[in-house]
């Protein structure tokens, strides 16, 4: 199981590298779709069908939005002159990589082995959840019942984002 997930994640890494280095922006967006749909397969292997359903819908909508933006433009990424700040940002990313590698090694040693995690917080959510929430799906029970106020906050964020998109697209820019 772990090997299968590692292989799919490797494919996602290849897709991500191609998306970052592609010359045509349309192929970059489609290579970003490789990463998203690979994530759907990973969710299915990790026994998370709710996440897989939501992710496949959201990924399709994201791709449609991105393709609509890219098709409206000239589509190619220009590499006109060598970037004087390029070396600075390469050095910066190498530095950040080192720092994050350090913290990752520390934190991954404190994690449980893959597949051997214990239910620390979710135990009370699973015990008698069907009687408490009336939902056979435990994820739905957590989202809409035990953590209902978080879901309300999420709805607020969604409304704010939709209002923001509408406002940004409707205003007339200064000429």
């Amino acid at each position, binding site marked *: 199981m*772990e*090997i299968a*997930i*590692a292989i799919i*994640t*490797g494919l*996602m*890494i290849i897709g991500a590298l191609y*998306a*970052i280095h592609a010359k045509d*922006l349309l192929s*970059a*967006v489609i290579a970003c779709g490789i*990463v*998203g749909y690979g*994530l759907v397969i*990973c*969710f299915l292997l*990790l026994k*998370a*069908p709710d*996440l897989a359903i*939501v992710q496949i819908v*959201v990924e399709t*909508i*994201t791709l449609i*939005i*991105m393709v609509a933006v*890219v098709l409206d433009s000239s589509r190619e*990424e220009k590499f006109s002159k060598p*970037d004087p700040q*390029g070396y600075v*940002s*390469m050095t910066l990313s190498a530095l950040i*990589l080192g720092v*994050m590698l350090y913290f990752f090694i520390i934190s*991954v040693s404190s994690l449980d*082995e*893959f*597949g051997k*995690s214990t*239910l620390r917080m*979710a135990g009370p*959510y699973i015990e008698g*959840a*069907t009687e408490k929430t009336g939902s*056979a*799906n*435990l*994820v739905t029970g*957590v*989202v809409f019942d035990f953590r209902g106020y978080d879901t309300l906050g*999420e709805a607020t*964020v969604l409304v704010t*984002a939709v209002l*923001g*998109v509408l406002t*940004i*697209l409707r205003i007339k*820019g200064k000429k």
Partner: protein
Amino acid sequence: MIAYWMCFILFLVGLYGAITRRNLIKIAISLSIMEFSTFLFFALIGYIDGGVAPIVDPADPVKIYVDPLPQALVLTAIVIGLATTAMLMAVIIRIYRKYGTFDIREIKNLRG
């Protein structure tokens, strides 16, 4: 443990893209790659060997379920990720209509 490492490498690829690219679309793609790796990490943490999907079957109550709490968190985060990506794309399309380019260096040069 190798799954955690691959997930971390995916995050680093997204970070590398967000730092080094100069194209707004590429930066948005890199941000969503970092998002995806975080979702994958949460789903990896909650997995239990031999567990089944967290859907209760009354006929067979004695089962090991995978952890439903990270899945609920990621379910929220996926939808919010869509909202932020849509907002980012709206800003990018406004910038493109005003300046005619996605390149942040040229946008900086055009100022004033």
